C-alpha cells in the first residue's frame, strides 16, 4: 500500500478527531479498521521507504495557525468541553466550522476520491489503487471486489500555503494579544 502524501495525512490527522467526535458511525467504522482483514496484495509489496527521522513541521504549524486565526481551532480543542451544554458547544462549533472552512478554502482544494454517491454499488477491479480506495469487510479471494461506497474519500488536489518570510517563527500559533488602553 502506498503511503498517503503529507498533505493528505495532515488533513486526515486534523479532521479525524473532529469527525470521530461528532459522527458515531464513522467512529464505529474506524474502530473496526484495525480488526479488518488486510487486503490480499496480488504481488509482494515493495518495502516502504523509511520514514524521515524529523518530518518538516513548518507547514503543519502554518495550517494550525491558519485554523486558529480564522476559526479558533486550537482554543476549541484546548477547552474542556465536559462542563458545557451541547447548545454552548454547538455555538462554538459554528465559529470553528465557519472559520476553518474559510481557511481551508483559501489554502487547499479538496475533491472526492470517488465520484459515485455514497451507498452506490462499486466494483474494485484487479490492481486498483489501494492508497486511493480502501476495501473493508468481507474480503475473500481475488479482485474484482463488489461492494457499496461507504465514504467517497477526500483528496487534496491543490495546496498553496502562504510563503513565510525569513526568520518567521511558525511555532507561535497565536500571539498573545494585549489591548493598549
Amino acid at each position, binding site marked *: 500500500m502506498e503511503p498517503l502524501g503529507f498533505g493528505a495525512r495532515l488533513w486526515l490527522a486534523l479532521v479525524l478527531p473532529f469527525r470521530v467526535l461528532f459522527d458515531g458511525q464513522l467512529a464505529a467504522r474506524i474502530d473496526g479498521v484495525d480488526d479488518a482483514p488486510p487486503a490480499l496484495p496480488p504481488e509482494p509489496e515493495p518495502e516502504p521507504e523509511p520514514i524521515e527521522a524529523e518530518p518538516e513541521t513548518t507547514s503543519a504549524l502554518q495550517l494550525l495557525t491558519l485554523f486558529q486565526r480564522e476559526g*479558533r481551532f486550537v482554543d476549541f480543542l484546548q*477547552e474542556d468541553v465536559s462542563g458545557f451544554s451541547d447548545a454552548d458547544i454547538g455555538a462554538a462549533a459554528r465559529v470553528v466550522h465557519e472559520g476553518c472552512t474559510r481557511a481551508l478554502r483559501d*489554502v487547499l482544494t479538496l475533491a472526492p476520491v470517488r465520484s459515485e454517491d455514497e451507498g452506490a454499488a462499486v466494483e474494485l477491479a484487479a490492481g486498483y489503487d489501494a492508497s486511493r480506495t480502501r476495501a473493508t469487510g468481507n474480503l475473500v479471494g481475488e479482485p474484482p471486489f463488489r461492494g457499496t461506497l461507504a465514504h467517497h474519500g477526500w483528496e487534496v488536489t491543490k495546496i498553496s500555503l502562504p510563503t513565510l518570510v525569513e526568520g518567521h517563527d511558525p511555532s507561535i500559533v497565536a500571539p498573545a494579544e494585549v489591548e493598549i488602553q
Partner: protein
Amino acid sequence: MIAIGIDLGTTNCALSFTDSASEPPRPLPIPQVLAPGEVGPRPLMPSFLYFPAPGQFAPGSLALSWVPGARDVVGTFARSQGATTPGRLVSSAKSWLSHAGVDRSGEILPWEAPEGVPRVSPLEASARYLAHLRAAWEQAHPDDALDDQEVVLTVPASFDAVARELTQQAAMLAGFEEPPRLLEEPQAALYDWVAQRGDAWRDEVSVGDVILVVDIGGGTTDFSLIAVREEDGTLELERVAVGDHILLGGDNMDLALAYTVRAQLEADGKSLDDWQMRALTHGCRAAKETLLGEDPPEQCPLVVPSRGRRLIGGSLRAELSRATLNAVLLDGFFPEVAVDARPQTPRRVGLTTLGLPYPSDAAITRHLAAFLGRGGDGDGFVRPTAVLFNGGVTRSPLVRDRIMGILTAWLTEHGAPAPTVLSGTDAELAVSRGAAYYAWARREGGVRIRGGTAQSYYVGIERSELAVPGIPPRVDAVCIAPFGMEEGSEVQLNQVFGLVLGEPVSFRFFGSSTRQDDDVGTTTTVAPLTELAPIETTLDGTEGQIVEVRLHARVTEVGTLELSAVAAQPDDDQRWKLSFDVRGQD
C-alpha cells in the same frame, strides 16, 4: 501585447488581463501580507494601508519580495489589523480623492489619526495600492513589463475632472511611465457583460434600449445610463448619464445589522466591547450573505466569540431572522418608494465636520428615483429597459429582486414595459475584467461605449458691477467644456481675458452632471453647480505685461480634461497649461 484592466476600488482592488480575443480576461492573483511573516496570493487586494507602531511587528515580518524592508502594509493584513487599531489605518482613500473639501495632496490620512502616526495624502495612498498591483504584475510576468502593455484604470463615473486628474497622478507616482487610460466603472461592468456574452449581446438588447447600471459596492453606490444606438447598421453603446458618488454600500448594511443585533443582546443584559462589536459585524456580514442568498433559511444563528481563549464558555449567541434582515436591510436601504421620492436632507447643522460627505439618507432606492428623475421627458423620469447589476451587494438575488420590483412598479405605472436583467457577470471582478476587455478592444478592435466627459464644466467669472463694500461680487459660471466631449476633442471659449504675466492667476471651477444641454459659452448662475478645485497657472513672460487669452478645454486621449490659456492674438501661439489646485478650500 497584453491588455490589462485595473480596478482601483474604494474597498478592494483587482487586476485582470487577457492576451487573446478568444479568452476572457482573468484576474491576477495578488501576493499580499496575510499575517506578520505570511505572504499569499488573493484575487482581490483590500484597499487599506496600515502604519504599525514602532516595534509592533517583528522586523522583516511585513516583507514582500519586492519590498524586503517594508515598514507598513497594504491589503488583507492591513484591513484585519486596522480593524483592531483604526487610528493607524488608511481606508476609503478613493473617496477622499474625490472630496473637494480637503487638501487631497496634503498628508491627511489616516483621518483624525492620533499624534505621532505617519500620514499620507489620498493621492499617495492610491499610489501605494497601484504600486503594489504593479509590483505583483512585474513579479508574475517578468518578461512583460507593465509599461509595455495596454493598461486601463477604472474610476467611478461620478469622478469629476479633478479626481480623474488625481487618479492619473497617483498612477505616475506609482511609477507608471505613461498615464494609463481611464474608464468609468459602470462602463467596465457593461464591457464585461459584452465579453461574457460574445456576439450574442447584440441579440439581447436592441436599438432604443436604455441600460441602467446599478453598482453597489462595499462603500459606494453609483448609477449610470447607457443607451443602445444604431450607427452604420451596427449596434453602438453610448453612456448618456451618470449619477453622483454616493458613499453608501455593503459596509453600511453590515453595520446597520450589527447595531440591531447588539440592541437585542443588550436587551438581554449582555454587553459587547469594541472587539466583540467588530466580530459581530463580521458575523452579520456572513449572516447577511446567507439570508440574502439562494434559498435563505428563516433565521441565521450568530455567534460572537469571546476574545480570550475560552471559546465555548465566553461566546455570545444571537440570531438574525429574515424578518429583521428585511426590516433593517431591505426596508432601510431599499424601501419601496414612489418614483417621485427624493433623498431626505436633514436641516444643516451649523457646525459640520470635515469628514467624508456621507449621505444622510440611506435609502438607495430614493437616490435611484432622484437619479432617474433628473433626466427624462413627459412625466419626468428616464425609463430604463434593461438593468445591469454590479458590486458585491447585488450578488444577492433578494436585493436584485427588490430593486427590479420597485423599478418595474415605477415603469408599469407609467405604461412602460418591465425592464430585463442583463446577467452573467461576476459582481466583484467585472470591473477589472471589463477594463481589460476594453483595453483589448481599443488595440485590436471590438465594441466601444461612447461617452465623453461625464460632466459639463464651468469657469467662474466675476460680474463687472459697481463694487459694494462688504458684499462679494457676484459670479457667473460660463460653460467651458460641455457634457459628452469625446476624447481628443478641443473647444475654446470665445470670451477674451486680459491676464497679467508673471503673476499667478486663478479661476473658480465648477462641474455639473445634470446640465447636459449647455454649450460652450452658456452662462448660468453658480447655484446649481458643484464647485471643484480652482484652476490656476502662472503666465510666464515679461512681468507686469497684460496679455489677452482665450480659455481652451481638451479631453486627452487618456480621458482627462486639460485646460489651457491660449494667446488670443492670431500671430501669437503661446499656450499656458492650467492646473487644478487641490489643496482644498474652506
